[in-house]
């Protein structure tokens, strides 16, 4: 997997787009340009670190609409908005939806590059968190159905005796499954299991 960041530039203005690509290339980024939100969505998105430099207003779907669409598709690409004419309403909407920054054209190099760096940092953090969650998911996937039932009840704070009664099995069996769950999930205690469950829920959200 290519770990060099790829910066996506979506701007319908050809001059602006090519100038941004030149600049980003000059400072050592790999950047790719798109003339519209549709263009961007149609291209396969490589699984690489990166961010999105997005013009606010474009013919067809706007930058804000692209932001909403990406969220729906669970694509967590951090977004830096660029706009020629900022309105309070649109900037508030963008920032609430998790945009890294909201820049007004003409934008200074340092301001732009700073925003891009922050976006990439956020992406890295997100990717890291996602990798952890992915590993957790993999470990969780190793549990048998019976072990998952036991796991759910342990996390709910139930005692072995209660779990045995609920599942209609011997307490001894519950005890053995519990040891298996702890081993598979690499947890040292019931408290560790609780934290794992919390992480899973967060990753699935």
């Amino acid at each position, binding site marked *: 997997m290519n770990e060099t960041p790829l910066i996506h530039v979506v701007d319908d203005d050809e001059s602006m787009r090519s100038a941004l690509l030149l600049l980003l290339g000059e400072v050592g980024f790999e950047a790719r340009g798109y003339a519209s939100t549709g263009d961007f969505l149609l291209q396969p998105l490589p699984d690489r670190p990166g961010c999105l430099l997005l013009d606010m207003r474009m013919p067809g779907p*706007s930058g804000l609409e692209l932001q909403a669409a990406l969220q729906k598709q669970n694509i967590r690409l951090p977004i830096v908005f660029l706009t020629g004419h900022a309105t309070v309403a649109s900037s508030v909407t963008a920032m609430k939806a998790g945009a890294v920054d909201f820049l007004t054209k003409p934008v200074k190099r340092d301001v732009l590059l700073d925003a891009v760096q922050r976006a990439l940092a956020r992406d890295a953090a997100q990717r890291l968190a996602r990798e952890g969650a992915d590993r957790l998911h993999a470990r969780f996937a190793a549990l048998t159905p019976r072990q998952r039932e036991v796991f759910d009840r342990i996390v709910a704070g139930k005692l072995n005796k209660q779990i045995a009664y609920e599942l209609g099995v011997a307490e001894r069996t519950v005890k053995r499954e519990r040891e298996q769950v702890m081993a598979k999930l690499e947890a040292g205690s019931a408290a560790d299991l609780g934290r794992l469950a919390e992480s899973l829920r967060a990753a699935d959200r």
Partner: protein
Amino acid sequence: MAALVLSFISVPLHAAQEEARVLMLYGIDPYLPPFLAMDRAMRESLASAPDRRINFFSESLDSQRFAMEKLEPEMAALLARKYKGLTVDVVVAVSQTALDFFERHGEQLWPGARVVFVGFLGYEFKPSALPPGASAVLSTLDVAGTIEIARRLQPDPQRIVVISGMSEVDRRTEGQAREEFAKLKEQRSVEYLSGLPLAELEARVASVPPDSIIIYLAQFRDRDGRPYEPHDVLRAVVKASRSPVYGAAETFIGLGAVAGSVASYESRGRLIAEQVRHKLAGGPPDPGHTVLAAPNRCVADARALQRWALDPGRLGDDCELRFAHVPIWRQYWWQIGLTLAVVAAQATLIVALLSQRRRRRVAEQAEEAQRTELARAARRATAGELTGAIAHEVNQPLGAILTNVDTAELMLDSGRDRREELRAILGNIRRDDLRASEVIQRLRDLLGNHKFERKEFDLNGVVSELEAIMRAEARRRGVTIEIRRTPDALAIMGDRIQIQQVLINLVLNAMDAVAEEPEARRAVEVSVAKSENGALLTVRDRGHGVSPEHRNKLFESFFSTKRNGMGLGLSITRTIVEAHGGRIWVDTAPGKGAVFRAEIPLVNSNGALSPNPA
């Protein structure tokens, strides 16, 4: 102190050695108009040739209104006290009452005073009553002269009627008249209406046939002894009469009497002055009576002459025509009024036509200027609406330029030879710079002080020029805009900027119309096409449409269905289109959007406008 005051008081008394004192003693009200005229003439005459300074005193017995018999002792006592120690040189006794009073008290009140008697009318005069050395200024009743004047005006009267009263004076006057007629050997019978009560007199006068002569001598009393004011009787007679009425007293002329031989009060005043001066001169008292008759002369009332259609020319040169200046106006009032009205109307019409012509010329010149001005005002309003789009259009190249400059700096800092890349970047910068200035130029065109121009241009070009700004605005509003042009040029004649205004107005209008729609349905379509009658500019929206009751008002000034609309946009749009010989109309229905079409005549190949049947 008392001596000082006394000496002040006595000043006029001592000074009286030098001045002459004349007492005007009136038997009746001295403020009656004839007396005022007489008094004024007398004083003017005396002042014009002053022998001595004259101090005038005035007393009125007012015997008409107050019973002299009862008041006389007290009045005499009062006057005695008033004039004690005051030497009066001359007493002018006006009317018989005054003369009688003087006879009884003069010696006691004003010892040594000499008398000038002014007899009101001839029949008042009783020569025996005059004190020794007195003079009398009398006016005679010239019945003969009056008759003669009447016969001059009416040589052939139907009848002759004489009106008089039953008082002693009246009887005497009538007698005088009868004598005069006898002397004239009048062929016709003369009818005398003597002492008739007023109502009967009016009826009798009314029955006198037209073209008769009526001579009014004066009536103080009727046969029943009822007293009258002679002038009132005259007024009634004149009113009732169908024939001219003549009178022998000056005051009768002016009340309706046509003419008469009368003595004027002014001439009487001058005669009095003469007598006063003579008395003051201290000449030896005339043992006999000096009796002077004020001269009688012909006086006629021009209004009355006009009323009876009598020819003033027959009166002769010696006749004084009074009230002539008034009759001219009264005689011709409607002709003069009509003439003035016609002249005024003509003048007004001429002025109105001239000013109308001038106004029209000015208006024609002003119309184009106004249209230009109005269009510019609307463009300014439009510019406000387009601020966002303009900012975007300018910021886009500026942003690219800045980024390119930043990049170029980095390239220079890299230390390598990157001339080709830098050249490319400079090329981009130049392009973007030109693009920005182009936007500003377009903005200036749109907002500037632009005079109406008449040039040939392609309608497609107008759409192209505004495409960027339309797209920018569409983008800002989240509206999809579709623009279609014709491959062939559509040449129209007129003002390019104004046609741009039409396009912008229609497009902004369409964008407003779709503003409330969900974003996916916000669509506006601009197209240019060739139509049967010219070039057709169509702007279509998928908005809320216009209700039928609003549809007809859309193009009116100050009509707007928008919350913040000024209602000028479409009105100006129509004005501009029509100024280009075109027409604009709308197809719309509620909920179905609206299609605005502006059709402008094409320029033929020879440069002339194609005929426009619309």
